């Protein structure tokens, strides 16, 4: 048993119990349904802005892009304009590929010792695949949830739903009925990706070694969100009209506690609230930070265009005069030109 992930797992279980018991026995609907979500959104919004502004208050003194390809130099040498951007539009493209397609992670490869002590660097795209699958499906799931927050539901969200539920998964066993409501692929892929990311953190020794409880916590938490969501949609079935009436109440600032919605919904909502509130104080801020990373968001053109450092201060230097004063005699002797000849014969 690894205390690092047990800690996080227990934390998430406690959160679950908090919400579950809070609703089931204490009936704290207003707290879990209204106050906590509002507070969480507030903390999230303000926290993220605060963190970004905090970052922004430190300048970028130097232009330090990591160059991952040929620089722009002589006109006949093919320039790697994305990996070594020289202009801002190339930087935008580089950032776009970075943020949307995780381009740097795509380069990932695994180092291996081989027979004959030959090193090899092999295909290791699973992390990339897992990361892309996780982030994209999370995005799709979030956007899909806007159906609970908009009335009428915008067409583009409906299209996304259609696309997401294009493949039908319909079957019925003695224990399980799946098919109506239609199955959204994104939710399942999200869960699968989470499980992959979790397993890798648990069982790849290197990754486990560098992980903290704080790295497991969001995984378990988002897994909790996904599981509670999937449970409500595919197993328990909840009155989604009532839920939408409730969520619409939240966003129109007329919150009303709905009738007939089970505690799992409040667990789901509580998990989401925790995630939002936790976000600005954690590594999850990488979502914002990736945009501010100076090794990626700058052009490699500081030889062509001067970059100014706002805190550039004068430093003590060893001037030529001091230098010549020290070595003048020897310089003259060696026939090196000097600024000032010897004045008094040494």
């Amino acid at each position, binding site marked *: 048993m690894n205390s690092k992930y047990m800690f996080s797992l227990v934390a998430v279980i406690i959160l679950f119990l908090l919400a579950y018991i809070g609703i089931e026995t204490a009936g704290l609907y207003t707290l879990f349904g209204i106050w906590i979500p509002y507070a969480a959104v507030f903390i999230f919004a303000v926290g993220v802005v605060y963190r970004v502004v905090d970052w922004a208050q430190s300048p970028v003194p130097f232009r330090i892009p990591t160059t991952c390809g040929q620089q722009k130099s002589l006109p006949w040498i093919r320039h790697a304009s994305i990996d070594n951007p020289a202009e801002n539009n190339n930087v935008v493209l580089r950032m776009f590929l970075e943020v949307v397609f995780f381009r740097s992670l795509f380069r990932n490869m695994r180092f291996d010792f081989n027979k004959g002590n030959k090193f090899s660097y092999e295909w290791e795209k699973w992390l990339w695949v897992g990361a892309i699958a996780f982030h994209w499906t999370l995005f799709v799931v979030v956007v899909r949830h806007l159906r609970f927050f908009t009335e009428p539901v915008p067409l583009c969200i409906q299209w996304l739903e259609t696309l997401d539920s294009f493949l039908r998964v319909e079957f019925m066993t003695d*224990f399980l009925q799946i098919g109506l409501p239609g199955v959204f692929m994104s939710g399942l892929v999200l869960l699968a990706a989470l499980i992959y990311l979790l397993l890798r953190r648990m069982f790849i020794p290197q990754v486990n070694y560098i992980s903290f409880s704080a790295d497991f916590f969001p995984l378990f938490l988002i897994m909790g969100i996904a599981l509670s969501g999937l449970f409500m949609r595919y197993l328990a079935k909840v009155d989604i009209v009532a839920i939408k009436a409730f969520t619409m109440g939240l966003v129109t600032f007329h919150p009303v506690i709905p009738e007939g919605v089970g505690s799992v919904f409040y667990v789901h909502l509580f998990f989401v609230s925790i995630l939002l509130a936790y976000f600005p104080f954690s590594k999850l801020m990488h979502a914002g930070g990736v945009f501010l990373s100076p090794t990626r968001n700058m052009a490699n053109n500081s030889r062509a265009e001067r970059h100014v450092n706002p805190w550039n201060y004068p430093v003590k230097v060893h001037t030529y005069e001091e230098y010549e004063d020290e070595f003048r005699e020897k310089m003259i002797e060696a026939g090196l030109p000097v600024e000032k000849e010897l004045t008094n014969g040494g």
Partner: protein
Amino acid sequence: MMQSSRRNFLKIAGLSAVGISGAKPVLDAFAAEGHGDERTEFEIRKNEKALTAQQWGMVIDTRKFESAADLEPLIEACHSLHNVPHIDENKVRHEVKWIWEDEYKHVFPTLAGKFVDERTEHLPFLALCNHCENPPCVRACPTKATFKREDGIVLMDFHRCIGCRFCMAACPYGSRSFNFKDPRPFIKERNPEFPTRMKGVVEKCNFCAERLAVGKKPACVEASNGAIAFGDMNDPESEVRELLKSNYTIRRKKGLGTEPAVYYIV
């Protein structure tokens, strides 16, 4: 609130158990908690009036038909009842038909010789799904969308059909049609009691399974004024067996071993 959702979920287990075994309704232990006042049993069952058989079969007495006009009402009865579209344009290509008429040499290509008696040569024959005992289409279907029921009916589950049309290739009788397009615009008057189909699925005669379930014989049988007999092939006392005993009958492409359940008295 929570209980209701959970109970709903767990009911499925009960439902299915009932459906499969036909046993007494299963109690849902979870549902019982805190709801003692409420009856927790439910049941899914067959209609009492439903007609049952081990192998439904049909005997068509072609002697009772004179011309295409005699077949028209049967076909119409079936097609209007089942919302079978009339696709006029490209008649041959996208045609959908459950029961239709054709010449002897086409319905019985392996029997037709050069020299056929006048009546047989010109008489229109009814063709429909044979609900074979040994159906190649069921073998071919990769999703069990076509399946053989306990009562011998070869049935289509339109919800499950993926439209691969393997069954159409497998059927040696050309009994299956595919919805190359949305059929609805081609249905003159929709019968709300029976679903239409959607584009992309295969369909065919279902021996009026929906009518048998409520104790009625198939529409074509009803409309045939006694020219078509319908009954259990495994019941020696049945009307159809009586007819087979007393008449010479033929079946379509018997040599293929599919054992069609539709017999023709000629």
